[in-house]
């Protein structure tokens, strides 16, 4: 019977199914905690967190305070509340609009990308069909192609189709995630035993039914992975919307923040660096929250799998 954690065969010694560890038993399992190691790793931790701390601290400063105070400590005024309010209401609340745009692109774009990758990965893993090798070669090759080779031709093509400056111009290219496809493919190869499929087919189930009822549950962890990956990528997408969108109403957050930053550099423009910083904080929060929330999902999946050992 298939287990919920996929199997791995690697070395001859591990012929039996291997579960993911969450900890070890015996003396190997409970090594001495090392302070030195903790301190060294903490250096990397500090390195990772300092800029984020900088961001948070400076989000509490007003435009004037930003420039008069030490970077890593607070200014005399604590303006986080007013900064947040200003960010959300500046220019008719366009930040909220940008947030909604980003959500749209992420849900439809990343969601669609995950769906396509799951379908495609399963197809590549479990079926033989004419042209399969070509598909494989082409998609892998796709990863190495620089985006600039595609950006302008895609833009010109989309202009002819009348798609530029619409959300579709950002969503459609986001639907293709070669790495997502590759990931699902390898995952599906391992996680879905051929015997199971045969059994379902012999029971008379059509391919689609088999897919939905039998395969998807097995692929769940891989789906979450690909979804998370495509979500992050779409949320942070910058260059593509930059060339496709001209109407600020359709900007995602990344483009919007950049526009605010650039606004200072125009004659007659207004410097709003404090809003840029506060906006950056607000942009990061949803992703961080998603990571933290989904982390529990993975953790329980891991734990559930290893209990069977």
């Amino acid at each position: 019977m298939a287990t919920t954690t996929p199997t791995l065969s690697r070395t001859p010694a591990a012929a039996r199914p291997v579960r993911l560890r969450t900890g070890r038993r015996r003396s190997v399992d409970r090594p001495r905690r090392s302070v030195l190691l903790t301190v060294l790793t903490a250096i990397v931790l500090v390195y990772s967190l300092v800029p984020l701390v900088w961001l948070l601290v400076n989000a509490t400063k007003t435009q004037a305070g930003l420039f008069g105070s030490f970077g890593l400590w607070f200014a005399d005024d604590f303006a986080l509340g007013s900064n947040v309010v200003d960010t959300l209401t500046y220019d008719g609340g366009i930040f909220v609009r940008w947030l909604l745009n980003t959500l749209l692109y992420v849900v439809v774009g990343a969601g669609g990308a995950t769906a396509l990758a799951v379908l495609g990965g399963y197809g590549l893993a479990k079926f033989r069909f004419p042209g399969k090798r070509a598909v494989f070669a082409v998609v892998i090759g796709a990863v190495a192609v620089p985006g600039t080779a595609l950006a302008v031709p895609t833009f010109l093509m989309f202009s002819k189709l009348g798609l530029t400056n619409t959300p579709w111009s950002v969503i459609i290219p986001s639907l293709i995630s070669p790495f997502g496809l590759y990931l699902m493919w390898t995952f599906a190869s391992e996680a879905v035993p051929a015997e199971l499929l045969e059994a379902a087919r012999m029971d008379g189930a059509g391919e689609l039914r088999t897919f939905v009822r039998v395969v998807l549950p097995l692929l769940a962890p891989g789906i979450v992975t690909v979804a998370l990956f495509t979500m992050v990528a779409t949320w942070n997408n910058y260059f593509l919307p930059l060339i496709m969108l001209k109407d600020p109403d359709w900007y995602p957050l990344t483009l919007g923040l950049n526009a605010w930053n650039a606004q200072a550099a125009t004659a007659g423009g207004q410097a709003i660096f404090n809003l840029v910083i506060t906006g950056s904080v607000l942009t990061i929060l949803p992703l961080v929250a998603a990571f933290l929330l989904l982390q529990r999902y993975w953790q329980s999946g891991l734990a559930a799998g290893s209990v069977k050992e």
Partner: protein
Amino acid sequence: MTPTRFRTALRGAAVAAALGLALTACSGSGDEPGDGAGSAGGGSDADLSGSLTVWAWEPTLKQVVADFQAEHPDVTIDLVNAGTGNDEYTALQNAVQAGSGVPDVAQVEYYALPQFAIGGALADLTDLGAGDLEGTFTPGPWSSVHSGDGIYGLPMDSGPMALFYNKDVFDQYGVQVPTTWDEYVAAAKALHAANPDVYIANDTGDAGFTTSMIWQAGGEPYTVDGTDVTIDFSDAGSQKFADLWQQLIDDDLLAPISSWSDEWYTGLGNGTIATLTIGAWMPANLESGVPDGSGQWRVAPMPQWQPGDSATSENGGSALSVPDASKNKELAYAFIEYADAGDGVQTRIDGGAFPATTAELQSDAFVGKEFDYFGGQKVNEILAQSAQDVVEGWQYLPFQVYANSIFNDTVGQAYVGGTSLADGLKAWQDASIQYGDEQGFTTH
């Protein structure tokens, strides 16, 4: 994922897609320029109708658009900030290239206008009414919107140069405000010697500034006749500038801060940067971006090359043009005439813009206005005078946008010590000529 969760996810996706479609429906107006209801009214103002898409980053236009729509209820205008300067030009070029998504009105800076005009992207406004506007605008901008025999835009604002200086800094160190460029260099040395953290100006290489300075010095490095282009930075004016400015670079008298960066704004406010030789549109920026400097700054005439001269040049400033691909040219022209030569001008002045029209520039109210930010000084007197003193005969390249984009690659290297300013200019000249060649121009 269990089947139930999968279904929930599907439902969620459907909701998102519906939301997306709803959003598309809600703000469809930005996508189809010139596709308005009905035709653009001709002749008289009263029966103007239709809709326009306007690409501009000038903030004072918001009010102008609102006023225009109030006066002409059958007209709808969609004002879009499609980017500042280069960003907008890229978008415009892309739209023209693709043949769709072109706005009805676009804000184009004077240095970029020839590029679009020669490329055929802009409509000739002479027959739409611009031919009657001789004398309405100051000489600098008016000649900048001409290309060949046609008029390709109406000047919106102008940027005659002046010396903005931080009076408190000069007083503190007992330095005289310079009236000639030699005095300027001396002042630079004095200020920096008194306090190494203080600089007379900042500069990390700015194409617009350099060309404006050469313009004031009487140089004419660019000669354009149709598709015949000559670029020569070895003429007298260019050399004068290069020699003088090289002194400042060599002695480290220029703050290595890029204009329009956050450090720049800070430096203007705390006395690190003592002067700005820049266009007349700067007061609005100082008021909004450097509140700390209020009361410290004053305006003086631009330093001269010879004592007693009164030559200036333009730095920045833009026009409103009508792309040739627009389907609403008459309505578009009616709007830009309103904004640049009609009631819109006063609206924009009230918003802080510096106009390009002679009438407003000479009006007593305008000239006599006292600016609190400048300690009550009547800044517009100097700025308006500067507008009249702009040196004539300057030309920009038909591909100035590109040339400016490689300015830092070439001339910019002089600021990081790689080469001399004169050599940098020569490199810029060569690269620009090479580009012109590749694009099919006859270059010298």
